């Protein structure tokens, strides 16, 4: 094992801050374009460092390599969750490794506590907006829907209004308009598809 002897280019001359900026840019490229060359730079920098962290933590080469593999796989697959506003690449990657280590040890000990790393440190959870943000989002979406609703064809508008605003059942609408239930259903489906399409364009 060649500890501390670089196998390939090494950025030892680069200041940590510059390096963080550089690594952030690579991570963003990985997220945006699945750029393998960028990922290999990230891997080249972090894998050997993670391996020495993992060896210190786990004291076993096979486990250490498993930890490196799982951590770097997550970096590759979930690079879009990295947020340079929140911290440096090394902090983000450390928290991923720390979480995997925590769950590895739980499994090795077959501990039965129902408490996993994601509960304690939700590093890799998709951001779910908290309540205030949600209501704001919903507000915006409602405003959008109102605008878009007015662009629907008249026949679809009538059906959507009856179901979602007046709270009628599809059968009631069919009876009132004297049209087959199937027509109400297809108008509803078409209208919703259309709204969905318009909303995603709007975004």
């Amino acid at each position: 094992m060649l500890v501390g002897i670089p196998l390939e280019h090494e950025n030892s001359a680069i200041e940590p801050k510059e390096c963080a900026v550089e690594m952030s840019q690579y991570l963003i490229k990985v997220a945006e374009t699945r750029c393998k060359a960028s990922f290999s730079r990230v891997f080249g920098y972090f894998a050997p460092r993670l391996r020495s962290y993992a060896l210190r933590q786990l004291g076993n080469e096979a486990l250490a390599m498993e930890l490196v593999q799982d951590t770097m796989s997550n970096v590759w697959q979930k690079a879009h969750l990295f947020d340079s506003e929140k911290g440096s690449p090394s902090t983000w990657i450390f928290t991923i490794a720390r979480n995997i280590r925590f769950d590895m040890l739980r499994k090795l000990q077959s501990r039965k506590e129902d408490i996993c790393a994601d509960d304690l440190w939700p590093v890799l959870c998709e951001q779910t907006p908290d309540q205030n943000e949600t209501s704001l989002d919903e507000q915006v979406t409602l405003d959008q829907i109102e605008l878009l609703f007015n662009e629907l064809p008249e026949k679809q508008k009538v059906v959507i209004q009856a179901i979602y605003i007046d709270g009628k059942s599809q059968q009631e609408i069919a009876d009132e308009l004297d049209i087959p239930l199937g027509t109400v259903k297809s108008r509803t489906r078409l209208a919703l598809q259309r709204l969905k399409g318009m909303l995603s364009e709007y975004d």
Partner: protein
Amino acid sequence: MIKFHPTPEHLQQFVKGTLSPVESLMISAHCDMCARCQSRVEMMTADYANTEIEQAVQSYDPDFDAMLASITQQPAAERASQIKARRNSTAIELDGKTFELPKTLHRLVKKKGNWSSLVGKLWQAPVDLGIDGVANFIYIEKGGTVPEHTHRGSEMTLVINGEFSDGLNDYDSGDLIYMTGDHTHAPRSDAPEGCLVFSIVDQPLHFTSGLARLLNPFSHLFFR
């Protein structure tokens, strides 16, 4: 105002991931409620990442090339859709009152058993965490008192909503309280809205068994 925080040592261990799952859960929930500890944890995490990863000695492995190749074969993780189909409940209810829980404890809503009435003005709902100890939500109505007791092992209590006193101190929402066999106390709430706490009492008998320790090479990381 929050007066009772985890010690800096506990926060440090929490950041390293070496604290027990149960204590980590309590600290994580406390940090949801305590901006001070939350920012401390963020700073400690950045510092620790710097010494453990950034400044780490590099340790190469001949398998790195193969590992890199196999990782980049993997597809990207699917991004969660914008709209969550069904959001889990984030609050618990008792007697018409609703208590919003700190984020870390949201997952516990599903694991909560039914409320049962203890001695006068005390309510308890167990939470199944699969731990050797016992986890409970405890609600003390205004004027309710827990009979004086001491602790065989250790007890951790997070005040979720309200205030209570125990003859030793006054506690407020967000306070994280450690109790051991050295403490004898009788919690009582005089707050108009009463007080909801989340409490975990461990059973150290099992944990301190010498045999389990010998069998388990990692026990020192988890067992106190």
